[in-house]
């Protein structure tokens, strides 16, 4: 039994660029998406009346389902459609790569390589999200995109006022009410905590996905090496569930961050219950 190591292993090198086993898996997922996207595009342009059939119908129902879930967070179909490209892509990419991780052969088919002086079996495939680089890249993209979209939606100075609340402080001083000024000072420092929470968002998004998928891979390896037949089946079913839940959590958190970033804050008088993590309004 070889328990998968924490970092993805490189299979071969293209120049200086190490191709890891996770990278192979994510490339396969991207290729699947290219093919499916091409087929769907061709199907929709060929379609005569406005009624999709077969596979197109399935794809359309998936998009509809996703949109109906997104509406519960954004409270508006136009905003859901605006964020669908980011959130939907992430959701389906994570879902497909998670589910690919429990296919037979992933983590078990490999090549023998000399690794730290010993000959070891290096798996050819490893779930794409069992590599921290992958999830970190997605989390960084999400948080950066939320900032850029926030600036684009409500303007730079209003957006900056969410973190460095000099504007609110100035408005509070103009009222000359000591309680308001005190509240504004406290909120000024809460703004700095918000900056830290932006970094924490990246950490928690990436580590949650990585931890769940990597732990699932280790669990399946251990159970599969204990008893090969029938006993791993419930664990595989569990991994199916974990795969879809983690994809949903990542996508919904992405959507929540995007929604919070692009929503204008209320004036400071109304905003008395605010916690550190910006929870979206449901």
């Amino acid at each position: 039994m070889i328990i998968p190591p924490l970092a993805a292993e490189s299979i071969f090198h293209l120049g200086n660029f190490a191709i890891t086993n996770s990278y192979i898996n994510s490339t396969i997922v991207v290729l699947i998406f290219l093919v499916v996207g091409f087929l769907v595009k061709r199907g929709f342009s060929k379609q005569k009346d406005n009624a999709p059939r077969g596979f197109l119908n399935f794809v359309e129902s998936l998009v509809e389902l996703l949109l109906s879930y997104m509406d519960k967070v954004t409270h508006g179909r136009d905003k859901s459609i605006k964020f669908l490209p980011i959130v939907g892509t992430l959701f389906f990419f994570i879902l497909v790569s998670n589910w690919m991780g429990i296919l037979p052969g992933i983590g078990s088919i490999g090549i023998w390589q000399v690794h730290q002086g010993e000959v070891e079996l290096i798996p050819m495939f490893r779930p794409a999200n069992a590599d921290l680089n992958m999830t970190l890249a997605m989390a960084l993209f999400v948080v950066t995109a939320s900032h850029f979209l926030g600036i684009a939606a409500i303007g730079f100075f209003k957006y900056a006022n969410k973190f460095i609340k000099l504007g609110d402080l100035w408005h509070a001083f103009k009222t000359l009410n000591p309680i308001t000024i005190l509240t504004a000072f406290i909120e000024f420092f809460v703004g700095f905590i918000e900056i830290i929470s932006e970094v924490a968002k990246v950490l928690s998004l990436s580590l949650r996905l990585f931890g769940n998928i990597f732990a699932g891979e280790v669990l399946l390896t251990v159970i599969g090496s204990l008893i090969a037949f029938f006993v791993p089946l419930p664990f595989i079913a569990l991994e199916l569930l974990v795969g879809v839940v983690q994809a949903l959590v990542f996508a919904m958190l992405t959507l929540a961050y995007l929604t919070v970033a692009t929503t204008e804050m209320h004036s400071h008088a109304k905003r008395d219950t605010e916690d550190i993590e910006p929870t979206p309004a449901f």
Partner: protein
Amino acid sequence: MDAETMTTLAKAIAIAVGGAMPALGIGLIGAKAMESIGRNPEAADKLFVPMLLGMAFAEAIAIYALVVTFTL
């Protein structure tokens, strides 16, 4: 107790407390969601996404504890 033992103990306490409290929070969220579904079964669809988001935010604390444990 020497420094190394203390570090190991600190790591253990960090992940134990940092794991137990979010677990309690997630359990409470799940319990309340189940209770609400029991009271009003039609609300199950509406509850699912907010429940999941609440659980994710509670789980984030456990992840911070894990990061702290690794950096200790």
